[in-house]
């Protein structure tokens, strides 16, 4: 039931005689204003306070004399005055009203009262601003909750930053130790992860000297999958190659043993690897590719060629050990060998022969560039039509 302050009660009121049917004397316009459950004030267009209600005085502890004649903006604290001048006032003047703006009001005792403010601008008959009416809602509890949300956001941001740091550390440790060169050769590498925010992926490159120092081993590989799990599996495979290689195993044997190892690595169900051993003094390169794209050879005086020997199936798809093939090729002084992962060339809309054709054409065109520039330009040009961001790894050895 509802009762208006000035009404005479409902038709049924007289019969029942219930107290609720009688007018409530307090519901006068004056009292509705003064003791409304919100603060209420009016200002001139320049912000000077000309009227305000009792609730606002109660909430802030100010007296009417203290506030009348002052400007609304003077009650605001913290960033309030700037926000008022740069947002609240323009919005009010352009839109004619503003809603749900959060401010802190300064109370008489110096404390802050968090409030939400709605305001309307009343114009006169000529369209000129006449008066601004502002209602003020106590938002103490809401403000506390919002502070919680903001703190949670800050924590989330800090946590994301920390995660990025962890990923970078992990990346550095997983790819640690690739040689950049030695007596008679230089190595240039490039790595770009598929997931921009996460600096790790399933691709790797590695170059390391075998015991005795006469031979340098190169590996580039790709664990199927993305993100942190693929990266961890990658780290295990990359390290396993190093361990196996120290036994004196050649490329074919190394990949056979690695194939057996892959079965025991939970997140490395399938992987492809190109692995090569270069005898630095003679230039003899022995290599094997388990399901991996063929290395590129840029020999002086000859066209760019793909090294198609020594092929076997990807690791993790069988077959049994002992069947991996091996290729041998001579790397003359001045020649360059490039190992890379499929992200460099493969596109969903193109078959692999076209992709490898583009690779050899581009490499031919760039072959005279120094190693760093060669790798950077090759990658830039080949990734220009990238349709689906993937990990990309390139390792370039110059003899």
């Amino acid at each position, binding site marked *: 039931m509802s009762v208006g302050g000035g009404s005479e009660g409902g038709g049924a009121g007289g019969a029942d005689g219930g107290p609720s049917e009688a007018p409530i004397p307090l519901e006068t316009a004056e009292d509705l204003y003064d003791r409304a459950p919100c603060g209420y004030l009016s200002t001139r267009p*320049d912000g000077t306070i000309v009227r305000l209600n009792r609730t606002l005085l109660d909430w802030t502890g100010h007296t009417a004399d203290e506030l009348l004649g002052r400007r609304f903006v003077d009650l605001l604290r913290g960033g309030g005055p*700037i926000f008022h001048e740069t947002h609240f006032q323009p919005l009010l003047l352009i839109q004619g009203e503003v809603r749900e703006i959060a401010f802190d009001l300064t109370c008489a005792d110096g404390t802050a009262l968090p409030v939400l403010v709605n305001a309307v601008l009343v114009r006169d008959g000529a369209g000129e601003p006449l008066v601004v009416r502002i209602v003020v809602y106590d938002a103490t509890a809401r403000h506390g909750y*919002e502070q919680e949300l903001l703190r949670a956001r800050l924590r989330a941001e800090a946590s994301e930053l920390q995660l990025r740091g962890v990923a970078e550390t992990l990346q550095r440790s997983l790819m640690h130790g690739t040689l950049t060169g030695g007596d008679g050769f230089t190595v240039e590498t490039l790595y770009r992860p598929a997931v921009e925010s996460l600096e790790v992926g399933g691709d790797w490159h590695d170059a390391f000297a075998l015991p005795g120092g006469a031979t340098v081993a190169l590996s580039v590989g790709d664990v199927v999958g993305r993100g942190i799990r693929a990266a961890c599996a990658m780290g295990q495979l990359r390290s396993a190659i190093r361990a196996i290689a120290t036994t004196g195993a050649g490329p074919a044997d190394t990949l056979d043993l690695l194939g057996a190892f892959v079965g025991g690595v939970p997140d490395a169900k399938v992987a492809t690897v190109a692995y090569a051993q270069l005898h630095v003094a003679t230039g003899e390169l022995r290599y094997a590719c388990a399901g991996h794209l063929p290395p590129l050879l840029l020999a002086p005086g000859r066209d760019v060629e793909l090294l198609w020997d020594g092929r076997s199936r990807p690791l993790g798809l069988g077959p049994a050990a002992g069947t991996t093939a091996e290729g041998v090729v001579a790397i003359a002084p001045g020649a360059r060998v490039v190992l890379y992962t499929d992200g460099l060339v493969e596109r969903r809309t193109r078959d692999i022969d076209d992709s490898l054709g583009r690779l050899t054409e581009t490499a031919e065109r760039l072959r005279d560039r120094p190693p760093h520039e060669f790798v950077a330009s090759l990658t830039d040009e080949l990734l220009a039509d990238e349709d689906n961001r993937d990990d990309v790894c390139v390792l370039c050895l110059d003899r």
Partner: protein
Amino acid sequence: MDVVERSNVTVRGPAVGPAMVFAHGFGCDQHLWRLVAPAFEDRYRTVLYDLAGFGGSPVSSFDPERHGTLQGYADDLLDVCRALDLRDVTFVGHSVSAMIGVRAAVEEPDRFARLVLVCPSPRYLDDDDGYVGGFSAADIDGLLDSLDRNYLGWSSAMAPVIMANEDRPALGEELTNSFCRTDPRVAKAFARVTFLSDSRADLPRVRARSLVLQCAHDAIAPTVVGEYVHEHLPSSELVLLDATGHCPNLSAPTETVAAIEAFLEAG
């Protein structure tokens, strides 16, 4: 993205007239000029644009590095002038954009004939050397906090608006779209750049004739700051408006237009 799209450039008035370029200040967008710019459209080619990431300027046009100082915003202004091949420009800048215009005019003095600086401040923070800007570092933190608190309700808070002005009924929707669009990251970054900037050294290097419009009771740019700007600009005049607050372009457009007209008529 071309410059016109990037800065949401609006051109009105005669195609071959002398150019007036209007730049809005911190907080809103080019609609701040809607009661002022039309007064010049009959004689001037008026060019309005939005600062990077504000109003109709796409968020992607905001580059944290380029826009890490006011220079980036001055470069944007120069890009607009070059794209439209504007010369002999009368630049009208509100609030922080006054100093963006000053910086651009120092860089390409031949392009700018006149500067109208509405509520300018070359430095908002007080300085140890005795300069009074009106703000402390804590005030800036408070502002960033305000931007955070008013971000939560931003999209719905500015919900549509029935405009009192029935001559331009489309304005309501147009404004809602633009006013709601400021990405809080852009707003906070620009707040930092604005309130930590120091353009005092640029003032004596300005060759263009300049007008400083100063309001009464401006909480952002107090009168002492307007006087400082006037004293350090080689060829300037200072006009004290009766208008109060920081947005005379909205609260006292008639007085603002009259002051600019008088300045333009003088040469």
